């Protein structure tokens, strides 16, 4: 069994890539995917810790995160569809009506 830190490091890298995706890309769908990637990174850390502490709670939390992610994707994609209908675009930089 490899040390947990390996997995944590991997998890951190994946998380950072996801975060960069959110920050760099303008395509709303890809931003979403990046969010999913971040969630996955977190899941990986959970499972690694679950293994290391021999506690199933970590795995159960992954299960819950998956559920939340599913719900989030459903609502988020619905939002994107709704926005696309009114704006005919999914570029997040076009949606700036909150500008002060």
């Amino acid at each position, binding site marked *: *069994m*490899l*040390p*947990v*830190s*390996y*997995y*944590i*490091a*991997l998890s*951190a*890298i*994946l*998380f*950072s*890539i996801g*975060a*960069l995706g959110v*920050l*760099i890309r303008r*395509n709303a*769908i*890809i931003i979403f*995917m*990046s969010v*999913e*990637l971040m969630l*996955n990174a977190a899941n*990986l850390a959970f*499972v690694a810790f*679950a*293994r*290391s502490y*021999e506690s*199933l*709670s970590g*795995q*159960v939390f*992954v*299960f*819950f995160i*998956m*559920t*939340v*992610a*599913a*719900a989030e*994707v*459903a*609502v988020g*994609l*619905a939002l*994107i*569809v*709704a926005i*696309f*209908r009114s704006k005919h675009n*999914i*570029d997040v*930089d076009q949606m700036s009506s909150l500008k002060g």
Partner: protein
Amino acid sequence: MTTDLILFLFLAIISVAAALGMLFSRNAVYSALYLIVNFVTVALFYLILGGAFIAVSQVAVYAGAIMVLFLFVIMLLGAEELGQSQTLSWQRPLAIVLGVGLVAEILSVVLTQTGVIASASSLPEGFGSPASIGNTLFLQYLLPFEVTSVLLLVAMIGAIVLTQRNKKDA
């Protein structure tokens, strides 16, 4: 030990590569496919870490259901690629610097504290099996489990309401 390490590195490289592929693809469809690859490698990690049930769920739910949904929406909207219009020119470099910074920070923490977190070499019988997960879920986490069901219901209704066309438009 070494086989473990080789396997780990092999999968980790694929995983990071797929993530980066997702990040830099122009086409959203490619991004999605890269992401699926990433999810599958992560599922393999789960398997290695003794989470058989979670691994299967990962493939079924993420790689299967969620990503298919993504692809559906991409196709539906026909928004694979966006036009060239850089609005915030300074954001991209700053973000990359920060991202690297974050990785460096986390790695520094992880590498300096390696010895603290020990790992058990052997696992109890049935760890991460559907039966054990089920027991934990329905005994210890019953109420959260029920709450997530409500959450899913709300998400479903929300999705339906949001995507419904106005009666006047129809």
